[in-house]
């Protein structure tokens, strides 16, 4: 597996909960951006030649604001430098506004075969609170439009909003299930530093409510045939987002565009690569220095091991011993503190059968605490 993430850093407005590298720009010089992305694709390809791309992900920001022709050109350019797997998954994040919905057909023609739709809520008050530009009705229409042209689409939902009860959420989720395809990402609202919500001191749901809502989500989506395969991601079996599995399973990926991150392994050495975050400075660096990379660091064995576990244990399937060994060079038994594994297994938070280490549903809901106990 080998993924390409491409970051488009522009949005029409900034949502108050969002800490992504997204900016509101008056004018965007599409030709210049095309050129810069092309240059970076060429550079990363020359450093990491001969890979077969299994997924491309256009993320943002709001990639659905990209001209479809640009998306088409970028997919082509990626295909010019690396080979594309015949089943390559190409996802674009899309905001469910009416103008975007009108372009879904063109995205499909450009090569996109999966949409991740930022629905967030089916409730107009909530959408307003979240600072979204679309109404519930527009959102529904956008999903209908997606359903018509794209066999694979996912809905993003934000729940555990202030004042939201388990009952409210059940109703909203039932509604959402009526619109869903084979994939739903349901995130509990996180108050991130630097956002408007953080400045306004909007509280995150308290632990007990958060736990109740989390359990509701697990139960309802499981019953609807979309069990969790990761903390916040649910899919019909087989319909998991292959691109995101690259991150969670510790495969290599290229990060293109401002602020994008990559992990690339060559000659057994994995490097963490981070692009310049500010869009204008990234562009300038690409144009003048021929690289948008801010830093590229070698991951040591301990860091690599920790990343495999902290990402892998987010998956309901957990971490496979063989995969762990092939990447980190040691077995899970050797890498982990047996006392911690025993304590966490006895507590009902982890299972380890020699083949696979996985968090139980109780463990997943408390994964941060489990990891902090495990990774010492």
């Amino acid at each position, binding site marked *: 597996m080998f993924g390409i993430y491409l970051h488009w850093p522009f949005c029409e407005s900034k949502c108050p909960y969002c800490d992504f590298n997204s900016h509101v720009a008056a004018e965007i010089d599409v030709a210049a951006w095309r050129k810069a992305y092309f240059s970076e694709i060429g550079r990363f390809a020359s450093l990491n030649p001969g890979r077969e791309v299994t997924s491309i992900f256009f993320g943002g920001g709001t990639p659905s604001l990209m001209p479809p022709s640009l998306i088409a050109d970028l997919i082509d350019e990626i295909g010019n430098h690396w080979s594309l797997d015949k089943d390559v998954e190409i996802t674009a994040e899309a905001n469910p506004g009416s103008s975007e919905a009108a372009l879904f057909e063109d995205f499909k023609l450009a090569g996109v075969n999966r949409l991740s739709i930022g629905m967030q809520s089916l409730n107009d008050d909530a959408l307003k609170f979240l600072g979204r530009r679309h109404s519930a009705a527009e959102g529904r229409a956008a999903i209908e439009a997606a359903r018509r042209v794209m066999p694979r689409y996912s809905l993003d939902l934000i729940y555990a909003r202030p004042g939201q009860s388990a009952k409210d959420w059940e109703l909203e989720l039932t509604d959402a299930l009526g619109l869903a395809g084979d994939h739903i990402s349901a995130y509990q609202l996180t108050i991130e530093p630097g956002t408007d919500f953080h400045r306004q001191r909007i509280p995150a749901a308290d632990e007990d409510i958060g736990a109740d809502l989390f359990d509701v989500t697990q139960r309802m989506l499981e019953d609807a045939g979309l069990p969790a395969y990761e903390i*916040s991601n649910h899919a019909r079996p087989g319909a998991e987002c292959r691109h995101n599995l690259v991150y969670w399973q510790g495969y290599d990926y290229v990060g293109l565009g401002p602020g*994008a991150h990559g*992990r690339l392994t060559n000659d057994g050495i994995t490097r963490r690569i981070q692009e310049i975050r500010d869009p204008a400075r990234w562009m300038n660096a690409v144009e003048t220095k021929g690289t948008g990379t801010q830093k590229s660091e070698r991951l040591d064995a301990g860091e690599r091991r920790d990343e495999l576990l902290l990402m892998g244990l987010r998956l309901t399937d957990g971490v496979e011993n063989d995969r762990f060994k092939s990447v980190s060079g040691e077995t899970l038994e050797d890498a982990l503190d047996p006392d911690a594994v025993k304590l966490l297994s006895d507590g009902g938070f982890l299972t380890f059968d020699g083949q696979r280490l996985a968090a139980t549903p109780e463990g997943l809901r408390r994964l*941060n605490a489990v990891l902090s106990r495990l990774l010492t």
Partner: protein
Amino acid sequence: MTDLSHIRNFAIIAHIDHGKSTLADRLIEYCGGLSNREMTEQVLDSMDIERERGITIKAQTVRLKYNAKDGVTYTLNLMDTPGHVDFSYEVSRSLAACEGSLLVVDTTQGVEAQTLANAYLAIEADHEIVPVLNKIDLQASEPQRVREQIEEVIGLDASEAVEISAKTGMGVEDVLEALIEKLPPPKGSQEDPLKALLVDSWYDQYLGVMILVRVVDGTLKKGQKVRLMSSGATHQIDQVGIFTPKATQVDELGPGAIGYITASIKTAAETPVGDTITDAARPAAEPLGGFQPSVPVVFSSLFPVDAADFEDLRDSLAKLRLNDASFVYEAETSAALGFGFRCGFLGLLHLEIIQERLEREFDLDLITTAPSVVYRLHKTDGSITELHNPADMPNPTQITTIEEPWIRATILVPDEHLGGILSLCEDRRGEQVELTYAGARAMAVYRLPLNEVVFDFYDRLKSTSRGYASFDYQMDGYAESDLVKVSILVNEEPVDALSFVAHRRVAEGRGRMICQRLKDLIPRQLFRIAIQAAIGGKVIARETVSAMRKDVTAKCYGGDITRKRKLLEKQKKGKKRMRQFGQVEIPQSAFLAALRMGDD
């Protein structure tokens, strides 16, 4: 050599803030001991803490020259003494070096607890006492009422008390004249073998240990070989001097003189206060009557917040002790708080001052455990031991009885607040000894267990009387009591630093309070946490921190990995500050917070 009849040695004693140090300043100024440029306010309070808190901790001394109205130039040796009860030991040392005292009373306040305590110390030391009525420049001054109080409450003749304002200098000359007239000159013989009282000693960065002495008989000279009569240790004198108040070398100190000597001594502990210094070649037959050494009565443990500061704490304690031999310390290990020191102090203020000096002068961040007193344990094997740390309490089956220290407390308080003070004393197991009235003030004398006093008694006294009560105490023996050790357990494991000894009657309430406090302070964990207070094997209070239900990051994609890993690495570092209790690890900070919170 000054004619003995031209010397006067006197101490200034008073309740805190009644104006001792200010009067000392005026006297120094009047006698020209310092130029104007050198005069800073309260010149004798040399430590930063003394200046800031406005209290005198160490006794200070200064030699003055006074041209009296009778035409004679007198040598006056002045000792400014601490006013706080914790340091009454220092007061009695200073008094032993003098023949008389100025008893300063603030005429806007009247006689307070330490006025009384210090006056009694002076009477005990056979002093001639000159009452000085201070602050008469203030509107609220009531010199006549205070005169009466001095006569009624203390029983001193106040008809010739001097009225002054130490602030403006009014009446200062009258004070000096009264000194000459009323105080007896020192007695002593120059020919007799040397006998000098070791009044105090402290460490000076440049000169090593400086010893404050009062010569009784004979002379002290540079180069002389002297012997400390208690230990027999001999030293050659490097320097002989007086304070003007600057340290100034002189050729010799004769009978009646107060001054200092240095002799290349490294620690103050080698120079026990109250000792007699004599000539090594021609020793005196009998030492002077010394004092009982001061004994620490309040114990508490100090731990560095950052375990890495342990060595620094050790060094700093050693340095402080060079100067202050009255506190003691020894290394201690706590399961909850790591490595630290168990320390003994003269009282709560002493504890606070040492802690503050460590934090300020040595830049250490410290945790202090709840202060405790010294219990006397009678064991089943017939032995008697002293318990300095509740954590060391043996199994109750090995103990027949426990004795605790009592104090005799004198409290002066305006009538309207008396009711509150009496119920506070009763509530703290007090036994009334005496209750008298003088004007609008009442004087209550109570016997109280010291254990009840170290537990927030001062704070309560202050709040109950809106700051108007004054308090003084003396140790008053030990008595058997129904005392129990309360252990605090987290997941069945004792948290030694939180255990305490209390009377059975209050043990349960305090145990419950600590459990509730901890419950609020310990963050939820993967496993539930039981917090218990227990006496012996019996649980008297119980709280539970329920298990955490949810703690997971909602979104974690390619760009979030680094941030997430850094967070985990930070947690790993934080683990050094964690303590293991059964299945859970509890941050040390929770215990610190529990110790830091007051009794509310």
